[in-house]
């Protein structure tokens, strides 16, 4: 036991004196988690709290365009600003450039006429189908009578959302106009005001419920998405320090002397595993503490720990053990420190991408979704998500821990084969 204790002390001392290694294992992931959460959170807020700024150029003098703008405003997604209807298309584009505006909607001069014509056409068809006499005068119906200018920096998913919102507002105006016409044709009097208001205001609320194991209605925030992900990244990045330390030991004379001493190198390996498992635990505590304590001070959403803390500790231990085993494997097979650092860093970035740390797995192409399982980081992330986002328990994460355990055993077996082949044990 004294041998193991002395070896852990030796490894810890060397680790604490490796300033670059410490920087990579602690400072880099801390910066990453703060920056990425900050960026992602501001993206959420762009759509959610702040509202997207949108210029409206209403060239129509009819009443339906006013109703359209009002409907658009009620959707709550945009901060609308009316601009002069005298501006030409070129002037509007120029205005967007100079004021750095993301979106401009042009309501054409014939908006009311076009929507009315469409409503008339639909109500006529409806009356005919009821067996009544409707106006079936053929009217040429174009597509959307609106034009949307957007800055190319606006990502596609936002553009799709904006388009849907515009369609939704347009639909409200058009449906109401159709109904008003139908009502008038049948009852020969205008649609009552209260019914019209109900039509305009009566937005159907959608009950949004996250699918959680516990049935909790807590909505996950950007911190709960990012903190576990970057903690896993940090854990696996110990490959730089641990892999490098193994290579240094191999290429320096100290390894030669260790081979002549009456102690098996498995003691050295066990010490490295314990020491660096400790490092991964400290990394987790530090990064989680940042999510809990620092994020609110930085106006970022606070991290909420899962209810099953024991499961959180066990998942963290499994992830740490897998990360350390991976680093040992790299360290044993690399012949130089440059190899260990290069292969280690690049492989972790690739495995992170495949595992869904950078882009969620569901958003990846089918092929990458299919191979996500080859990355141990994927299983780590899935286990954490089950705890953080779905309020899962230990029993729920077991299907994720099993593959992690298998990967760990395989990595350690490969490491032992490597040690034997290289006559290091």
């Amino acid at each position, binding site marked *: 036991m*004294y041998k193991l*204790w*002395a070896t852990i002390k*030796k490894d810890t*001392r060397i680790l604490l004196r490796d300033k670059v290694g410490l920087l990579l294992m602690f400072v880099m992931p801390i910066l990453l988690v703060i920056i990425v959460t900050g960026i992602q959170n501001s993206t959420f807020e762009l759509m959610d709290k702040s509202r997207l700024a949108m210029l409206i150029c209403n060239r129509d003098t009819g009443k339906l365009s006013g109703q359209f703008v009002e409907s658009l405003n009620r959707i709550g997604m945009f901060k609308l600003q009316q601009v002069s209807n005298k501006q030409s298309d070129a002037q509007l584009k120029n205005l967007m450039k100079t004021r750095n505006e993301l979106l401009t909607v042009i309501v054409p001069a014939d908006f009311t006429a076009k929507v009315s014509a469409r409503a008339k056409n639909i109500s006529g068809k409806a009356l005919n189908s009821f067996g009544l006499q409707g106006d079936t005068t053929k009217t040429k119906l174009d597509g959307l009578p609106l034009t949307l200018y957007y800055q190319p920096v606006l990502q596609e998913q936002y553009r799709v959302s904006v388009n849907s919102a515009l369609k939704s507002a347009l639909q409200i105006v058009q449906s109401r106009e159709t109904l008003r016409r139908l009502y008038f044709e049948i009852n020969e009097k205008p649609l009552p005001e209260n019914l019209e208001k109900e039509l305009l205001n009566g937005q159907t609320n959608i009950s949004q419920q996250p699918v959680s194991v516990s049935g909790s209605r807590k909505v996950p925030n950007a911190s709960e998405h990012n903190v576990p992900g970057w903690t896993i990244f940090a854990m696996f990045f110990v490959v730089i320090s641990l892999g490098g330390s193994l290579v240094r030991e191999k290429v*320096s004379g*100290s390894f030669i002397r260790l081979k*002549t001493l*009456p102690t*098996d190198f498995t003691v050295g390996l066990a010490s490295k595993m314990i020491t660096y498992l400790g490092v991964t635990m400290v990394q987790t505590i530090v990064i989680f503490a940042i999510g809990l304590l620092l994020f609110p001070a930085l106006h970022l959403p606070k991290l909420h720990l899962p209810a099953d803390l024991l499961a959180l500790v066990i998942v963290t231990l499994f992830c740490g053990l897998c990360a350390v085993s991976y680093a040992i494997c790299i360290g044993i097979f690399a012949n130089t420190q440059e190899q260990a650092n290069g292969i280690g860093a690049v492989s972790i970035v690739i495995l992170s991408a495949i595992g869904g740390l950078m882009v969620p797995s569901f958003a990846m192409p089918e092929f990458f979704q299919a191979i996500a399982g080859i990355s141990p980081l994927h299983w780590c992330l899935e286990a954490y998500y089950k705890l953080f986002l779905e309020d899962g328990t230990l029993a729920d994460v077991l299907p994720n821990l099993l593959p992690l355990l298998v990967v760990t055993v395989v990595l350690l077996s490969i490491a032992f084969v490597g040690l034997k082949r290289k006559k290091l044990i």
Partner: protein
Amino acid sequence: MGVADQYAVEVNNLNFRYQENSGVNFNGLNLKIPKGERFGLFGPNGAGKTTLMSLMTGLLTAQSGDVSLLGQSIPGKGKQVNKLFGFVPQDFSFYQELTPAENLEFFGAWSGLSKIQTRQRTDELLQILGLADVRNKQVQQFSGGMKRRVNLAIGVIHQPKVLFLDEPTVGVDVQTRHAIINYLLQLNAEGTTLVYTSHQLSEAEDLCNDIALFDQGTIIARGDLQSLMNDHQQESLEGLFLNLTGKNFRD
């Protein structure tokens, strides 16, 4: 005392060649080093001194033949036989990021000492080798001579019965060389068998009572200094060395 017990090191009919077939080959090498000797292995570069030392310490495994330490065969005994000997490699074989005391604490534990024994031996060795004042300084800040003394201290921390030294004084000043030689003589007086390789022929005079001249994997002459010079009618060891190994460059 059995015959086997008389020898600290026995090399019997040793055959060795590197896998890539480079370097020196040993064909049926035999060598017996009696207990308590100060055995010096001298030879030109590439003669096979370090290879032989690696075979005697179990770092390399021969294709056939046997190496025994104090009657125990190295290949068959696993790690237990390693308790019997100490090894001071030519390279600085320790952790430069640690202090001498921290290095000795770690290597003491790996050499099989208890915590108390390690602490005791660390204090003793740092004192003897003049490192007590710098015991808490990182070794990477040391001079070459100080590093040599740390290298030696680690090799003897567990008071081995046989001590292998591969050029332990290379690159040191006269004072450090003198201190190291004196300490080795003291260890030998206390019963440690020394097996020593060097290029420094003068050290053969100062340290060794049994000298082997080694070249191309073969012992070409062996005896004490005086008898070697008498047998080959030379007045100095250097003359004897050049006479037996030639004057051509070897590397």
